[in-house]
């Protein structure tokens, strides 16, 4: 199976092309083609996984060289795939979650006339995402990296007849591009330093390079990661990206694409290993984002935006973990996988709710949906418990381990990171419970013409599968350190780590904080009535509702100066640069006008000038000669 890994990319890409080129003829069966393509890649992925399991741990990594891609000057880049434990983990996550969401979308998008295009874009996304994780060089990774950005752009703007959706799509693409800038610069540095941009050469040569160079590479890669993974300070696009159809939010903006930044950092582990500064920055970025996302999530009333903020926050956890070294990588990826399941499950649940509530997203208009939508309630509830970290559900095994790891280290770092992660867990419990209670419990706040009903099987079955995953995947993978053993050959290991506080104490503390968060939410949003109009906010809530003013900051720092700059430049180009040219022309014309006075048309003046000229020349010759 490993030798046909290229099919993983080729199949969905071919499906995308067929769906695009077939046009309206494919409207009848296009979505099933999309589902088939994603299912086939899921099967190939699973096949490859079992084939790899059959090998020794050492020989599980395999490179597949496809063809020479760019061969320009000293830059030689092959299109090649790197299949190892890390990339295969992602392949499984992407293909399985992807296939489930494809199935879900068949029902969710049933009434959309452009359903075929939707599936085409989803397939494009799958292809690009798999290219991203399977690439064996940074440059090829970049192709997938921008490819998922493109798919994300297309899907966020899927309903682009609404101007705000089109703007959101643009915003996502441009912010991502800002991150990509970092990746390009990183590749430039790598090429200058190592003469290559393939993982093998760069990561293999990292030992011999100077720390300054590696720090520069680390920081620029981090910039790329923050863009793609919606980390501080490039987090602003994710909330707006919820304008896309909900399955997209589930697949791209929760489970897979946004985690690519974590993948990039983990994949470049060898570089971060060698540079403490860059690693520290990664951890700081993660810590900031996890708190930021949690706070924002607590104040939003839009169910999808709460989940988006939650995604940001959870990826913050992963980043924080990735900033902690090899053992952190493993749990970053572990959390990434579990988060992929329960977050996708919850997004699909949210989609199911919206489906039932005629696309209402305001949680203040929900309430008491438990009875109307039992399956959704159960599956969502499992996801909720999982993200809270309630044992023995998935989140407990991944997130709590990250909190533990955050307490590892010396000096101020364990205390700052650890407490941040700990407090983040409490806030997470609060806002996720708030979401859950506001939606499914309390009093019904919907209007009469809405008739909540359970979604069709095509939608609920994927939700059930994901819920099962949310519940038991963590336990399954954590048992006997399965996941750790699986990934260690790729990420390396950093031996036994001892947190500054004892592990049982940490677990107790975490659970206590989670319980407190749940209790607070219960008291505020289940026991008490929730007003259907948001109450006038306090300053803190206002800030959180406005995404901590990130858009205002962006507007003040980039957009408004940028707009002024471009306007000024446009004006200056016309008035100054072009103006200078025209001024010159005017000057020449004025000179001509002045010299016209000599051209009086009077023969005698001309004769006079001729004689003068002759005399001057002759004198020069006579005197000079």
């Amino acid at each position, binding site marked *: 199976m490993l030798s046909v890994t290229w099919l993983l990319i080729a199949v969905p890409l071919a499906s995308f092309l067929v769906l695009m080129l077939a046009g309206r003829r494919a409207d009848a069966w296009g979505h099933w083609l999309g589902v088939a393509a994603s299912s086939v890649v899921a099967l190939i992925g699973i096949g490859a996984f079992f084939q790899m399991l059959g090998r020794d741990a050492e020989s599980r990594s395999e490179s597949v060289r496809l063809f020479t891609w760019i061969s320009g000057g000293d830059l030689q880049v092959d299109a090649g795939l790197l299949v190892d434990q890390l990339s295969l983990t992602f392949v499984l996550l992407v293909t399985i979650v992807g296939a489930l969401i494809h199935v879900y979308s068949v029902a969710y998008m049933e009434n959309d006339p452009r359903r075929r295009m939707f599936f085409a874009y989803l397939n494009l996304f799958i292809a690009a995402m798999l290219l991203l994780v399977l690439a064996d060089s940074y440059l090829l990774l970049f192709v997938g990296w921008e490819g998922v950005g493109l798919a994300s752009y297309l899907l966020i703007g899927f309903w682009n007849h609404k101007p705000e959706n089109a703007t959101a799509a643009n915003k996502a693409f441009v912010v991502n591009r800002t991150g990509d800038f970092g990746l390009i610069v990183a590749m430039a540095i790598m090429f200058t330093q190592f003469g290559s941009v393939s993982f093998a050469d760069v990561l293999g040569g990292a030992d011999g390079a100077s720390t300054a160079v590696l720090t520069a590479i680390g920081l620029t890669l981090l910039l790329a990661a923050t863009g793609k993974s919606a980390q501080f300070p490039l987090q602003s696009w994710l909330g707006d990206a919820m304008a896309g159809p909900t399955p997209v939010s589930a697949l791209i903006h929760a489970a897979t694409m946004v985690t690519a930044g974590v993948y990039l950092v983990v994949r470049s582990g060898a570089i971060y290993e060698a540079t403490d500064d860059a690693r520290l920055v990664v951890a700081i970025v993660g810590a900031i984002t996890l708190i930021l996302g949690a706070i924002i999530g607590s104040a939003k009333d839009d169910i999808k935006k709460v989940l988006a903020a939650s995604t940001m926050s959870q990826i913050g956890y992963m980043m924080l973990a990735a900033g902690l070294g090899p053992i952190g990588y493993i749990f970053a990826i572990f959390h990434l996988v579990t988060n992929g399941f329960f977050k996708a499950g919850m997004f699909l649940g949210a989609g199911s709710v919206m489906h039932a509530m005629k696309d209402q997203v305001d949680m203040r208009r929900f309430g008491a949906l438990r009875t109307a939508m039992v399956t959704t309630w159960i599956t969502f509830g499992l996801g909720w418990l999982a993200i809270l970290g309630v044992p023995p559900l998935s989140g407990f095994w991944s997130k709590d381990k990250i909190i533990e790891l955050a307490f590892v280290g010396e000096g101020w770092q364990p205390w700052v990171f650890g407490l941040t992660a700990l407090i983040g867990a409490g806030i997470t419990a609060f806002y996720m419970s708030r979401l859950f209670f506001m939606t499914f419990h309390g009093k019904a706040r919907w209007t009469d013409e809405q008739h909540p009903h359970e979604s069709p099987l095509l939608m609920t079955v994927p939700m059930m599968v994901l819920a099962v995953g949310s519940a038991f995947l963590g336990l399954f993978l954590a048992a006997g350190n399965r996941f750790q053993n699986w990934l260690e050959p790729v990420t390396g290991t950093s031996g036994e780590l001892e947190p500054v506080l004892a592990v049982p104490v940490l677990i107790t503390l975490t659970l206590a904080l989670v319980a407190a968060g749940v209790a607070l939410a219960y008291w505020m949003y289940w026991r008490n009535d929730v007003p259907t109009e948001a109450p006038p906010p306090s300053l803190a809530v206002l800030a959180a509702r406005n995404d901590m003013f990130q858009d205002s900051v962006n507007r003040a720092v980039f957009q408004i100066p940028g707009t002024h700059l471009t306007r000024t430049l446009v004006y200056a180009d016309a008035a100054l640069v072009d103006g200078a040219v025209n001024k010159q022309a005017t000057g020449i014309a004025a000179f001509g006008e002045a010299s*016209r006075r000599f*051209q*009086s*048309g*009077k*023969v*005698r003046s001309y*004769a*006079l000038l001729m*004689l003068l000229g002759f005399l001057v020349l002759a004198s020069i010759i006579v005197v000079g000669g």
Partner: protein
Amino acid sequence: MSPVNFVYLAAVLFAIGAATVLLRRNAIMAFMGVELMLNAANLTLVAFSRMVGGIEGQIMAFFVMVVAAAEVVVGLAIIIAVSRARQSISLDEPSELKG
């Protein structure tokens, strides 16, 4: 007395001719100035011919005379044509050369 004095004389005549061209507005007068300049040149040619001892200078002067005769014919014809068209032969008037 050396024939070179005739060259000086020719220089004086040439200067007078040039000044005439520059100063007189009447086209015929200016034209006469041109003729005077031509003659001054001829005088130079002949004087130098005498000094060198050959005859080529005289031949040259002869040619100048012939060409000058032709030139006078055409020039005066032009003056007549202009005077018919404009009722004037002042050099200051035809300002179509004005740029």
